[in-house]
C-alpha cells in the first residue's frame, strides 16, 4: 500500500490528506451546525435543510451576477455581502416556515419530517421554475482561487482555508450566542422546559421562531460557502441531507460539541479511507461504521447520561 511512494511523498500525503480532512471537517460542521440547532435544540426534523442551503447558494449566485454587472469594482469583496444576504434570506424563509408550518407540529416530530419533506419538494420546484433546471456556475473573485505552495509537494487551497475560517467564525459565534448570550439562555430555557420558560416571562413563540430562523440562516451561510466547492442546482440540496443528519445524530443531538466531534471523526475516517480505498467503498464503509456505532450506542457520542 505504501510501497509505491517515497518517504518524502508519504509525509506530503499525510500533510495534504490531513488538510483535506480538515476541509471536509469544516464542510461537515457547517452543514450540520444549523441542523444541530434545529434538530438538537428543537427536536424538529428539517428535511428541507438542504434546500435552505441551496437558497443561500442561489443568493450568492445572484449576488455574483449583480456585482459583475453593476459593481465590478467591488467584485472581490462580494462574497462577504453574499454570505450576509444568504444568512438573512434563509433565516427569513426559515422564520416564515416556522410560523406557517413548524409551530403546529412541535409535539409530532415525525410529522415535521413529512411536512418539511413536502416543503423541500416545493422549494426544489420553485428553484427550478424561477432560476431554471440547470446548475448555475458561481463566479468567484480571483483572490479566492488557487493555492499557496508551502513546500514543493505541499500546497494549501485558498478556498479551503476560507471555508475553515468561515466555519471557525460561525461555530464560535453560535457557541457564544447559545452559551453566553441572553437569547441563548432563553433558547436553552425554552428547550429544557417550555411551560416553565413561558411562566417566567419568556416569549416562547418568539424564541422558537428565532431559533428556527437561526438554524436556517446558518444553513444559508453553509450553502453560500459551498458554491466554492460544489454544485448549485435545484436538487443539489438533497445530496447533503443524509450526511448531515447522520453527523448530528452521531454527535448526540443535543450537544454542539458532539456535532463537532462527530463531524471530525466522520470526516477523518472518510478522507483517510478515501485515500486507500475507492471513493464509493470509502463512503459505504464510513456510513456503515456510523450506523453500526449508532446501533451500539444510540445516544450518540456526546450525550450526558440522564435520568429517564
Amino acid at each position, binding site marked *: 500500500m505504501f510501497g509505491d511512494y517515497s518517504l518524502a511523498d508519504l509525509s506530503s500525503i499525510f500533510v495534504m490528506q490531513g488538510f483535506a480532512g480538515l476541509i471536509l471537517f469544516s464542510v461537515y460542521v457547517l452543514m450540520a451546525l444549523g441542523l444541530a440547532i434545529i434538530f438538537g435544540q428543537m427536536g424538529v426534523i428539517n428535511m428541507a435543510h438542504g434546500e435552505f442551503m441551496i437558497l443561500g447558494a442561489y443568493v450568492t449566485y445572484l449576488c455574483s451576477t449583480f456585482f459583475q454587472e453593476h459593481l465590478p469594482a467591488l467584485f472581490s469583496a462580494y462574497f462577504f455581502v453574499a454570505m450576509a444576504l444568504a444568512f438573512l434570506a434563509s433565516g427569513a424563509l426559515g422564520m416564515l416556515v416556522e410560523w406557517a408550518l413548524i409551530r403546529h407540529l412541535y409535539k409530532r416530530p415525525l410529522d415535521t419530517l*413529512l411536512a418539511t419533506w*413536502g416543503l423541500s419538494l416545493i422549494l426544489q420546484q420553485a428553484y427550478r421554475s424561477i432560476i431554471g433546471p440547470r446548475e448555475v456556475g458561481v463566479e468567484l473573485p480571483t483572490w479566492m482561487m488557487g493555492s499557496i505552495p508551502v513546500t514543493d509537494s505541499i500546497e494549501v487551497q485558498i478556498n479551503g482555508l476560507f471555508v475553515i475560517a468561515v466555519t471557525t467564525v460561525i461555530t464560535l459565534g453560535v457557541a457564544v450566542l447559545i452559551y453566553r448570550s441572553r437569547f441563548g439562555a432563553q433558547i436553552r430555557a425554552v428547550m429544557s422546559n417550555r411551560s416553565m420558560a413561558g411562566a417566567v416571562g419568556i416569549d416562547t413563540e418568539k424564541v422558537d421562531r428565532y431559533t428556527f430562523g437561526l438554524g436556517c440562516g446558518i444553513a444559508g451561510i453553509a450553502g453560500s460557502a459551498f458554491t466554492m466547492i460544489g454544485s448549485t442546482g435545484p436538487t443539489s440540496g438533497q445530496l447533503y441531507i443524509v450526511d448531515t443528519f447522520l453527523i448530528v445524530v452521531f454527535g448526540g443531538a443535543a450537544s454542539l460539541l458532539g456535532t463537532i466531534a462527530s463531524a471530525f471523526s466522520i470526516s477523518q475516517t472518510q478522507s483517510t479511507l478515501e485515500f486507500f480505498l475507492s471513493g464509493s467503498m470509502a463512503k459505504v464503509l464510513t456510513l456503515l461504521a456510523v*450506523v453500526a456505532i449508532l446501533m451500539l450506542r444510540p445516544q450518540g457520542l456526546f450525550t450526558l447520561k440522564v435520568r429517564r
Partner: protein
Amino acid sequence: MTSPKTSPEKSSLQSLSKAVTVNDNPFMKPIEWVSLLLLAGVILVVLPLVLDGFRLNLVGKYLTYAFVALGLVICWGYAGILSLGQGVFFGLGGYCMAMYLKLEASSVENTKIQSTPGIPDFMDWNQITSLPWFWQPFHSLPLTLLLVIAVPVAFAFIISVAMFKRRVGGTYFAIITQAIAAILTILIVGQQGYTGGINGITDLRTLHGWDIRTDSAKVILYFVNGGLLLGCILMAQYVKKSKLGRILVAMREKEDRVRFSGYSVAGFKVFAFCLAAAFAAVGGAMFTLQVGFMSPSFVGIVPSIEMVIYAAVGGRMSLFGAVWGTLLVNFAKTSFSESFPDLWLFGLGALFIAVVLAFPNGLAGLWREHVEPRLFRKAKGLAPTPTPVLPAHGAPAE
C-alpha cells in the same frame, strides 16, 4: 406467569360478562366488510372492466406500492415506528425475484454471444466469468419464492433487533433507516458486476418458462397481485384485531406501561417491522414481475419517503386507506405529470404538508367523518357500532 391466579370474588361475578355484548371482538365489523368488498370489487372487477391493458398494468404497478403502504400502516400507524427505508425491503424482494428471472433469461442459448455464456449480460460486461455464490440459489423457483420473503425479513430482523433492543426509536430510527437506504443504494450501484449497477436487472422474460411480457400474462399477474394484496390486507386485519394490534397501539402511546405489564416491547416492534418488510418484499417481487425489471432507484430515500406519503394520504391507521391513498397519489402523479409536469412537485409537496397539517387521518378520516354517517343514516342496520371519536392528535382506532 402464564395464567392469572383466580381470586375468591370471582364466582360472584361470573354472570356479569354475559350481559355485556359490546366488547365483542369480531374479526371484521360490518363496515369493514363493506370496505373490503368495495376494494375487492374495484380492484378485481371494476378496474379490469373499465381500463385497457396498458392502464390496468399501470394500476398493477401502483398496487405493488400499496403493499409497502399497508406495511407502513402496521409499522408506523399502529406501532409508531416510522421507517424511511421501506424501499430497501421493496427493493430486496424485487431483486430476489429479478435474479431468478434474469438467470432464466440468461440461458446459455440466449447468451451465446457473451464471452462467458450462461451468466447475466451485465456480469459478462464486468469480466465476471462464473456466477457468484449468492446468485446460485436463484436457479430454483421455490427457493426464490422463499428468499423473496426471507432475505428482506432477515435484514429487517437484524436491523430492528439491534435497534429496538437498545431502544432506538422515533426520529433516530427514521434517520438510521434512511441512512441504510442510502448505503444500500451506493452499494448496489457500485457493485455493478454483481447487481447490474444503476441500470438494475433488466430484460426479464419468463417465469418458469411462462412469458411474463405478453398481454395475457400481464392480466393474470394483475389478478395475482390484487389477490395477494387482499390476502395481505386480511393478514394485516388479523394482526390489527388480535391482541397484538392493541399492544402495538398501547406501545405507541405508553411504551413503559406496556413494558411494565410484562411485555418485551422490542419483540413486538421487531414483529411489526418485519411484517412491514415482508409486505414490502411481496410488493417488490410483484413489481418485478409486472414491470419487468428492478433497479436501485427503488431502494433509495426518495421512493421510501414517497411510500410513506401513500400511507399518510390514505390515513395512517387505515388498512384500506393505504390502498386508496396509493392509488390516488399515483393516479394524480400520472395525470398531473402528463398535463402539468412543472406543477406536479408543487402538488406533491403541498400534499405532504396538507396531510400533516389539515388531514392527519387522510382519506380514511374524511370517509369516517363525511361518508359513513350519511351511509348509515340510510342503512341503519349496517351500523351496530358508533363511529369512533377521533382523538385530537390524529390517531383514530379504525
